[in-house]
């Protein structure tokens, strides 16, 4: 009767610590970010065809999956780079303005930011996955009037992440 005694429907499982690594390409100055599960963050440059990628910044992060304890279904979030809170975004930005309005109504806005694909677009995150993520965090809230709303990245925040501006743990490891 484990399901009956379980306080929540969704569990975070398979949490793997790692790093979000931001790198830049020497000639084109292109930037991108990816998750590294290595115990030590990679900092060495490398060649990819005729492009040379160099390390720019690193931030501690984690990867995880969400398990539905009722159905046993596992939802991995490998494409997720991080959750950007509206309040961590620049004041006056679209996200900040929407988030500030929502926060007055006890709704906290977060944006699910994914990596950038080779064609410069954000890696897709299925709406059904976002539903699961929203359910996971909301079912744990103790404040009755409070809600968490994790939105898809329709704001282009993946570019900021790729450029290392608003990563989840940016600056925290350096203890600046």
């Amino acid at each position, binding site marked *: 009767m484990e399901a009956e005694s379980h306080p929540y429907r969704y569990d975070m499982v398979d949490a793997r610590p790692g790093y979000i690594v931001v790198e830049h390409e020497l000639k084109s100055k292109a930037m991108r970010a990816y998750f590294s599960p290595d115990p030590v963050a990679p900092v060495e440059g490398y060649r990819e065809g005729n492009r040379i990628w160099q390390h720019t910044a690193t931030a501690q992060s*984690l990867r995880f999956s969400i398990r539905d304890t009722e159905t046993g279904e596992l939802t991995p979030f490998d494409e997720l780079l991080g959750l950007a809170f509206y309040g961590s975004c620049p004041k006056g930005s679209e996200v900040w303005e929407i988030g500030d309005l929502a926060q007055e109504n006890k709704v906290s806005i977060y944006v699910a930011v994914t990596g950038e694909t080779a064609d410069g677009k954000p890696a897709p995150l299925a709406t059904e996955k976002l539903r699961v993520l929203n359910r996971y965090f909301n079912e744990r809230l103790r404040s009755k009037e409070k809600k968490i709303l994790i939105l898809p990245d329709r704001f282009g925040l993946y570019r900021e992440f790729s450029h290392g501006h608003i990563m989840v743990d940016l600056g925290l490891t350096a203890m600046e």
Partner: protein
Amino acid sequence: MTIKELAEKLRLNPLNTLADRTVTGVYISDMVSDVIANAKPGNVLVTVQVHNNVIAAANLVDVSGIILTRGRTPADDMIALAEKAGIPVLVTDLNSWQVASMLFEAGLR
């Protein structure tokens, strides 16, 4: 025990409104992703970090409050954000270990 009672007991200095929230336990971490993965709702978060992303993580997990140790002083932005999110922020000159010991003595696990 509420966060208000805890603040009085440990002589912590509140930087914003002390909401009447029950403290269910303690989580000590200086890493945002670790807080998101492992802190429990109602925990009081003990940290030295004063970045806005600490509020982001604390709000997501719905902690009962944040204790900033070693006299760390957050920017006004962080306090304003915590206030909007209804998260009490308290500061102390004690280090995290000393605060942890006092929280343990106060009966929190």
